[in-house]
């Protein structure tokens, strides 16, 4: 019993006891790997933004290199059957993947978050009404929704982004509601109401700062999901019609013959998406852990 001398990181008896004490215990560090993940994200985002300025080939230009050639010094990622440079296409493809992913998760969080906080705080029929909306949205088959939208409003960049954000809203709303309810029960919220704060003031000054922290940690994880979702939609031809994303590239590269003869055409966009989503998941998870322990230290009894 007494011989093991493991160094224990994180939640110790002292952590819990220190809920009553001074902040002598620092938070577990985010870690080296966290920063690697963040660096990759920054790299991808910057590359996507400055793509037009980069000295790379025009992604749509046919015949930049020999057709269906593997990776070479001229074409780092090889060329596809139309002789287009895969490296350049991978960078340009990031633009749509990231924009749709970003916009839909941020809009989804804003809309869903507001719904969740308002419903979770006010309860009663407001909560029931919002809950009903969430229920309906959740029950709607996603593919049908996109088929409908693509037929009605078309497959423009904003149309697809908005549609995807609607898909995100219900899960976010439920989560925000659950977090709100746990905080709304705490005495400091009652104290705010007893002071005479209006409901709006309570939601903004007391509830929101507490909900934002765990939710923002989940934002990165959510971004990973929307990027993958866009990829899936593109694969099915339901994403942005004008232009191409990683998903579209994968669709083109996954045609059986192409896959056999020129696997690199699909491989590189898959790799790009994989590493991007992996980085987002990793960073998001580290953030979540980072804030979780602090929460336990404060409110856990």
């Amino acid at each position, binding site marked *: *019993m*007494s*011989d*093991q*001398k*493991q*160094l*224990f*990181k994180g939640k*110790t*008896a*002292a952590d819990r*006891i*220190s809920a*009553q*004490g*001074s902040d*002598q*215990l*620092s938070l*577990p560090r985010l870690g080296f790997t966290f920063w690697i993940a963040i660096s990759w994200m920054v790299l991808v985002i910057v590359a996507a933004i400055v793509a037009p300025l980069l000295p790379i080939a025009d992604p749509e230009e046919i015949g930049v290199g020999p057709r269906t050639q593997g990776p070479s010094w001229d074409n780092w990622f090889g060329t596809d059957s139309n002789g287009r440079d895969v490296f350049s296409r991978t960078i340009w493809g990031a633009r749509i993947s990231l924009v749709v992913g970003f916009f839909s998760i941020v809009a989804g969080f804003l809309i869903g978050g507001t719904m969740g906080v308002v419903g979770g705080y006010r309860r009663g029929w407001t909560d029931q009404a919002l809950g009903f909306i969430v229920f309906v949205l959740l029950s709607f088959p996603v593919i049908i929704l996109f088929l409908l939208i693509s037929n009605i409003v078309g497959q423009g960049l904003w149309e697809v982004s908005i549609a995807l954000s609607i898909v995100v809203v219900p899960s976010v709303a439920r989560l925000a509601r659950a977090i709100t309810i746990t905080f709304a029960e705490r005495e400091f919220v009652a104290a705010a109401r007893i002071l005479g704060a209006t409901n709006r003031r309570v939601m903004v000054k007391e509830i929101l700062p507490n909900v934002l922290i765990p939710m923002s940690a989940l934002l990165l994880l959510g971004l990973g999901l929307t990027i993958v979702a866009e990829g899936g939609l593109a694969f099915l031809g339901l994403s942005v019609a004008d232009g191409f994303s990683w998903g579209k590239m994968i669709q083109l590269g996954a045609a059986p013959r192409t896959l056999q003869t020129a696997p690199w055409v699909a491989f590189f966009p898959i790799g790009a998406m994989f590493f991007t989503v992996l980085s987002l998941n990793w960073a998001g998870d580290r953030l979540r852990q980072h804030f979780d322990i602090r929460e336990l230290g404060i409110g856990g009894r």
Partner: protein
Amino acid sequence: MSGALLTVQDLSVGFLTEQGLVRAVEGVSFVLEPGQTLGVVGESGSGKSVTAKALMNLLPSYSQISGNVNFGNRDLFSMAASREKHFWGVEMAMVFQDPMTSLNPVKKVGEQIAESLRVHLNRNRHQALAEAGDLLEQVGIPEPGKRLTQYPHELSGGLRQRVVIAIALACGPRLLIADEPTTALDVTVQKHILDLLDELRRDRGMAMILITHDLGVVKGRTDEVMVMYAGHTVEKSPTGTLFAEMRHPYTEALLETIPRIDTPKHSRLIPIPGRPPEVIEVLPGCAYAPRCRYSIKSCLNEQPGLKSHSAGHHCACHAPVGTPSGMEARAANEAAGITVAGLDMSQFSGIEDKAEEKRSGGED
């Protein structure tokens, strides 16, 4: 010493964390005879619960435990190292504070009691359940047969705690450790549970360690009391002697600060300034010095050891209450208006006399 049931020598427990070594318990020693009750009194950070868990082999693997604990002539730590299965829960058992979390919510009450009997005493299911029913009756649960098939959530707090006690007693332990067994219960139920523990103890000749933050609980129910502060034993004595003639300034201060039912309304309570130190703060010298009215220079540098005052009465203090050095130190501090540790003495003036009255009024 050879007849003693439990001998604890210099028990220390530390936890190695990222911020360094947290010393939860330092140098605790005591001897428990068969059938005797020891009360352990302390606040948060005193180390009382960690001590109990150390004795019950319930501490996590990253704890650093040193010292010597013998049950009869068996060494507890070597039994732990060799993963002895039929000692804890059999010879020595424990009852915890919160009956809500001590019981498995998805298992019937009877099964939970029977489990102990089946694992340790090799009873079959039928026998074990029959004995479980007997145990429920012994702990004063009405309609024991019906209760056997109930789930914990169907019982009230008091009944749940009785079930927890039944589980602890199932294999006939010679020592029962009760860690704040009544703190989570209502006042009227508290009395029933404490009375029950007294009765069971007497009927079975069982020894008991009763851990609590409430000095009132140990009065009249324990043979000996050990007061702990910041991981150290500060005073240890037969119960009657402690209340009649306490030696440690902390014990004295505790008795003066707690309101009593019998004292009239608006009697001024003497607060103890400051607060118990964090588990992670390690001060040179005595941990109580910053809050102590009797502190002298050596209190700041030198950790006081346990010294004997009268038969069985030990105190860890450089200037104990009621001794010449103690009275001198107190007088000096009062005259100076401030102690060597920086405690402002003026907040105590004028209420000393009321405290005297209370203290003498509180004795039986």
